[in-house]
């Protein structure tokens, strides 16, 4: 189903933010919308968006490729993005990440066998005073988790998985 048909209200609301002759500005919020369900932007969605804002599909793909929060491939339902950048690393983020990998049994960039959580290392998330920290990019957007420990994180992972189980 096309984006406009699936989310008529949201598309309209997004377009209303920008001058009518500058529809192209809506491409980024529309990509978030397209990514909502599957966690990545598929080709059909790119075509859709191209049509809505009157640019080419290639133009849309070029934007997806530039920004790290858009994905053109399926991964885990939840992307756990741990900041391992300099300030966090000075506060133990790398050890945190290592321990997390060990406990989840996956390497950075990999997804848990049940396909739920993909572990990623990312650059600064503007929470340097609350390291170790990560964000979770999932169907409901992006959520920060700060001052984390490995135990707290594993608990969270457990909750996320159960939540999914419940929904199923």
């Amino acid at each position, binding site marked *: 189903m096309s984006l406009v048909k699936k989310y008529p209200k949201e598309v309209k609301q997004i377009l209303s933010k920008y001058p009518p002759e500058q529809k192209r500005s809506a491409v980024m919020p529309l990509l978030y919308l397209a990514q909502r369900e599957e966690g990545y932007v598929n080709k059909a969605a790119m075509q859709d968006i191209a049509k809505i804002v009157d640019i*080419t*599909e*290639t*133009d*849309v*793909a*070029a934007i997806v*490729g*530039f920004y790290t929060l858009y994905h053109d491939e399926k991964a885990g339902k939840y992307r756990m993005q741990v900041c391992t950048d300099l300030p966090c690393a000075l506060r133990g983020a790398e050890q945190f990440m290592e321990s997390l990998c060990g406990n989840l049994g996956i390497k950075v960039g990999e997804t848990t066998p049940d396909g739920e959580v993909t572990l990623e290392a990312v650059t600064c998330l503007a929470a340097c005073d609350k390291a170790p920290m990560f964000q979770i990019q999932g169907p409901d957007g992006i959520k920060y988790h700060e001052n984390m420990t490995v135990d707290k994180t594993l608990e969270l992972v457990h909750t996320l998985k159960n939540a999914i189980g419940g929904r199923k």
Partner: protein
Amino acid sequence: MSKQVTLTIDGKQATVPDGTYVADAAKMVGIDIPVFCHHPKLEPVGMCRMCLVEIGRPMRDRATGQFVMENGAPKIQFMPKLETACTNKVEDGMVVMTQSNKAVEGQRGTVEFLLTSHPLDCPVCDKGGECPLQNLTMEHGPGKSRFIYDEKLHLDKMVPLGELIYLDRERCIQCARCIRFQSDIAGDSVIGFDERGRSTQIISLSDPGFDSVFSGNTSDICPVGALTTADFRFGARPWELDAQASICTQCPVGCNTTLNTRREAKSGGDVVVKRVMPRQNEEVNEIWLCDKGRFAYHYAESKKRLTKPQIRKDGKLARASWDAATKLAADNFLKAKKDFVILASGRLSNEDLFNLKTLSDHSEGKAYLYSNMAGGELTSLVGVGAGTNFGKMGAGTAIVVVASDLYEEAPIWYLRVKQAAQRGATLIVLNPRETKLDKYASFVVRYAYGDEAKAVNDLGKKSKISDAFLKAENAVVLYGSEGLGVSGSASVASACAKLLHDNERVGKPNNGLIGVWERANDQGAWEIGFNSEEDLAKVLKGKSVYIVGADPVADDPKLAKALEGAEFVAVQDVMETATTEIADVVLPAQAFTEREGTLTSGERRVQRFYPAVPVTGDAKADFSITSQIARHMGVILEGTSISAVFDILSDSVKSFEGLNYAVLAEVKPQWPIVGRGDMYYGGTTYENTQGMGVHLSAAAGRGEKVSISRVEKEAAPRPKENELLAVPVTKLYDRGTTVMPAELLHERIGEATIALHPDAAQNLGVEAGQTVNVSFNGVSAEAVVKLDDTISVGVALLPRSMGIAIREPVAVKVKA
């Protein structure tokens, strides 16, 4: 004249127009500042950092605004950092140093950075020998790499962006020239960058890949070997190639080209054309070429080329001597008297057509132009006037495009009209369905197929659109053949000519009428006195026919039938065709690559082309064959020297007055400077050294009295209840005899299609992609359904030259 600015570059004084960028100003005075991303046809972006120079500006006193003086001259303040010459505009008193230690060091650094990720595979690279990166590395780069070779990034080396253009990801230096050309100049934003940083890569997601008819140009302006054409890839080394000036024969634009040739073992030791390159003519095609012009040259080397004259004996064609073949033709033409008919196409040169027309004038025969369009006598009357140049049009000029999909019919005109509109010209598009040009138009008028002339006449009546049209000082009208046959075309042409004439927009530069003809030299034929004919079958039936450069048997079953009943048929062509198969005499003609001649473009510019490869077999130039036939008929025509034919032509046809081959070969300085040793600047487009051509005069421009009368067209056919009105439209890539031998284009040519409104398709119970049967007037053919919601429900679009013989609007039955 615009304000001039004087600055000093490397101690040399330069006076250039205000607004010029330093990199271009340097070029104007013969100083080379190396560039990769900068291109004189593109807006500057300052990305590649190759053109780093030191720039000093006269210091001003902040309080008074006056120059601060030092030793009697303004004190020059240099910036602490190097600046990019491509993004800084010239200023009075500016001092630029391109060769200072600091600048040289900066340029060297940029080359070194570029080379860290470059594969250095020049020995196997198609660009080697004409590569800006290679050349600028030799000139400005370090001799040794400090980047560890084994740590180089390895990427895909053969990525088809489409079937026409291949990308080598390792060689790409991310200058974005190709992307910017496609989005800013071509208006087809179908390639772009994926990822970012060092991972930045070119991609195309369009379907088909790199879906633009201008894609080949990106390989010309690519400063490395990243973009190559599928046609030339691994075809030859640039230094092995000879170059000869030519003119593209695929459409009426008349793009100036250079044919690159080579003698090679692969082709049996023959000299063959390896590629077609654009040749600069800022008044015609600038430095661009469409993909049809670039890739559809292969017919000249087709296996089906005719090499010997043939005469039908016992029902079969058999080799004959030139004398016997031409004598047989001449005898039959003489015998036919008034029933001698010449049918010639606009694929022929001015000289060929002139000899043919003279032959018909001096015998009792008639000569027809093989064309579905009319109105060429009007373009000859009202112009466009000499001096017309789309490249100079902008605010103050109205451009009207009627019944034409310029992108498909004449791509370079599309590009030039689009750019004129972007510079401020008032563009008015009148067409029954959406075309790519609509996006750039000030006004778009939709009319029903059949109401073309009325739509044009309405421009003469008071309205917002006519106000805008009349407010512009100059006006050019381009009319095409969208949905039209000869009768409809005559009607719309007369309406356009009358509109222009009534409002005195004729005969002057940037004023007048342009026919978007089907063939390269249709305009020349009209100037020489040819006419098109609506009912060709009628005029061919039972006659002795001399067909030159046309294939009516393949094009139209009606004409095939008419020719079956002809008394005698002589066919003169470069290739075997369906028409040569039914001929009594076949006369092999030279391809345009093998001979010289002139063509008259739709803008009424006469341009020369030159022989680039040796003649195939015993083929002769068309004008010469005609002369030989004429001699047997007792008519003396020049048959040896083509320039002499042209001289006679210019003495006989008023609009050609004063022209000769020497004048046509003249060139004048052009901007930007391209194609010399410095490919890094303008790309690999060739410099024009063999002639830019000359405009014909128009009757209105010569002060002759011109009167235009409206031509009414025949009523359009009325489809019955179970029928649709099918109209012919033009596709760039069609199954024309000069296109099909280019196998590379077959995917783009595709199948015969029929475009229907979605509701019409629903009524018929058919879907997009489904094959249907289309029948009319005894023609029955298959076509694949395409949906187009910009046409009306009762209409179907049938592309010409795709295997379905449609010459004019007809009522058709469509069956699943």
